[in-house]
């Protein structure tokens, strides 16, 4: 079989297997393993397992269970309730204020955890019911929560950027910093969008009834203190890391323990919360790790059978495209693949193919990491398949239909595409902060 043929056969069998609905890791792993046994030649059967040893040595993956645990502690213990109340009172008098407050909430939550899952959980369980109760437009607010939770992996800490860093061999610290301004920029764009739409059509986001928002100034200020907690957790994790006192993985452990301690001190760490956090951390970590394991095996086989070179060759030699066109094509292909591939799978399968190409084309890999992250976030939100879509469906109240969810994301996706374009045209949006801090 030619290299091109192998690439096509392996890729399409994987797609087919995924469509059957078998567990993603099983689908990817099986195609890789069967190809290894049948096509590799001597000793091919050892490749899937040797990926497990490779994965063991990927030390930044240790941050994964830490950030997952942190996210569950934050969402399960309802620490975020106080934050929500803060925004509720402060933003209530404005049309669409609660939705704007939700974006603010998401920014704070994303500074405390590395995945979009926690943001989604907090948004769907705390913010969404409240928003619906106040008569907010259900389509708009569903979109707010999905879009807001995508900030989770753009604002540091971010697990996706850690994984990307491993694949692209780029410094995690710089990648995290590169995500800050684009993250805040996107949050601002969401807020502007909500404000403008609610200004034009106030019924989308009614003002809170006065009796709910007439709170004494002292009380209002007291509520502001809730906002300190995320800052404390963020600082406990990031200050030692940025100063080089602790390593990345150590910092993630400190973050997990700080969140845990905060929940205990606030009296929110009940037996049930503890049980759910610990159990779900195992469940989600296992999901991620098995997918990464399977994808690493698939990747090594794909690579060793010459399929990677075939793709490389196609892009750079045969099509003879300009670097910018290749870059745009890659982004488009992510969006396409994001409609049927799981997020982690996409990261571990596709990124290793693209990253060397991006580098060869002369683009900055830190900058590309930010583009990549935003693109995958868009991909997770766009139907028919998307991680955020599924989570939303699982977590949203009954009155929100799948149709609502699909319909809700369109304007936000457009905003994200706009943000993406801006960052592509002006790389300094992403690169200014890391260059400033690390004095590159």
């Amino acid at each position: 079989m030619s290299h091109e043929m192998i690439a096509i056969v392996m890729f399409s069998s994987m797609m087919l297997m995924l469509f059957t609905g078998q567990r993603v890791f099983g689908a990817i792993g099986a195609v890789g393993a069967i190809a290894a046994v049948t096509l590799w030649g001597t000793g091919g059967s050892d490749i899937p397992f040797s990926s497990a040893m490779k994965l063991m040595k990927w030390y930044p993956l240790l941050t994964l269970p830490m950030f997952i645990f942190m996210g569950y502690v934050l969402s399960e213990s309802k620490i975020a309730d106080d934050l929500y109340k803060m925004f509720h009172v402060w933003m209530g008098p404005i049309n669409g204020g609660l939705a704007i407050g939700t974006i603010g909430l998401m920014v704070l939550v994303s500074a405390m955890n590395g995945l979009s899952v926690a943001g989604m959980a907090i948004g769907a369980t705390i913010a969404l019911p409240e928003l619906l109760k106040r008569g907010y437009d259900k389509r708009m607010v569903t979109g707010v929560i999905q879009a807001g939770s995508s900030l989770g992996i753009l604002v540091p800490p971010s697990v996706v950027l850690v994984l990307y860093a491993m694949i692209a061999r780029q410094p995690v610290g710089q990648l995290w910093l590169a995500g800050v301004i684009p993250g805040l920029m996107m949050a601002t764009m969401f807020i502007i969008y909500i404000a403008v739409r609610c200004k034009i059509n106030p019924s989308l986001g009614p003002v809170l009834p006065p009796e709910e928002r007439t709170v004494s100034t002292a009380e209002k200020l007291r509520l502001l203190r809730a906002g300190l907690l995320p800052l404390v957790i963020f600082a406990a994790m990031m200050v030692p890391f940025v100063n080089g006192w602790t390593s990345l993985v150590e910092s993630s452990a400190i973050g997990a323990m700080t969140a845990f301690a905060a929940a205990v001190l606030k009296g929110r760490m009940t037996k049930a919360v503890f049980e759910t956090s610990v159990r779900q951390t195992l469940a989600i970590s296992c999901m991620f790790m098995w997918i990464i394991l399977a994808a690493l095996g698939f990747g090594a086989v794909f690579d060793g059978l010459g399929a990677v070179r075939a793709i490389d060759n196609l892009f750079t030699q045969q099509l003879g495209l300009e670097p910018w066109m290749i870059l745009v094509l890659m982004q488009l292909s992510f969006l396409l693949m994001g409609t049927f591939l799981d997020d982690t799978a996409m990261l571990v399968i596709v990124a290793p193919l693209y990253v060397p190409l991006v580098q060869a084309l002369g683009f900055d890999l830190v900058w590309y990491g930010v583009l990549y992250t935003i693109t995958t976030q868009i991909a997770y939100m766009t139907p028919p398949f998307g991680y955020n879509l599924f989570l939303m469906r699982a977590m949203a109240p009954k009155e929100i239909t799948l149709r609502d969810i699909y319909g809700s994301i369109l304007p936000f996706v457009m905003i994200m595409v706009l943000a993406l374009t801006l960052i592509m045209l002006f790389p300094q949006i992403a690169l200014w902060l890391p260059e400033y801090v690390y004095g590159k």
Partner: protein
Amino acid sequence: APAIAQSKITWRLQTYAGPALAEHVVKPAIDAFNKVAGDEMEIELYFADQLVPTGELFRAMQKGTIDAVQSDDDSMASPTEVTVFGGYFPFASRYSLDVPVLFNQYGLNEIWDEEYSKVGVKHLSAGSWDPCHFATKDPINSLEDLKGKRVFTFPTAGRFLTQFGVVPVTLPWEDIEVAVQTGELDGIAWSGITEDYTVGWADVTNYFLTNNISGAWAGSFFANMDRYQELPDHLKELLKLAMDSSHYYRQWWYWGGEAALRVNGPKMQLTTIPDEEWATVENAALKFWDEIAAESETKAKVVNIFKQYNADMVKAGRPYRYG
């Protein structure tokens, strides 16, 4: 034509170097080999950890998952008696030419061949790379400064350095640059300054210690025994030529590069531990040699060769040894 394409021999060779370094230390030779071998054979080059992780590399080659490997014995953890001598055995050699001399004229080739044959692997050809220096975030001006430094280094060199308070850390080669930045490492004792610049380590560290713990890396090309035996003689010969050309490229590339970057390199500041103080380390190495020699007969044999060689060099005087 398909008929020819089907009988074409294809090897997968994984080097322990990442793409940036491989561009110099192995790729030119492989490209040349493939060009000459034409339709008869192709060696596909893979980089550090690309197909199998370094820890599994030896077994993968022994089994035939990978056909050939470029690595030092030490970081690949070969299950042989000579493994500790690969990479940087402390102070075993002073110049990069010492390594081929030791292998070709002092009998190491035969010992290596015997040891690797026992475990089903063909030891093809040993070559030399650069000296082993510290590249660190904070300056090292005395042995005291080494204490508590978490440093990426070779296993055996690491074992030796622990007595000076160094904390050796082993991570995948490709992750080192990031690990320095994520605070997993304080520095690197893995290479000379050429490699620091080539692979990007000079961008994440600030200081280069001019004292070295070995003058030359020793590593080899290896192949799965069966795959090697299957090669026709003329391809075996071509392989040898390609490997020799790779060794030769590295001799001048590193020798010139080390000097040029020390003198003109803008990214790292040089520091030096005074000779009298560094003598402690050199003397400790001699003790370390004896400890290793006591471990087995083969190891004692190799250590004796090192001793003999170094004694000869001292006797020979300039330019082999000054002072």
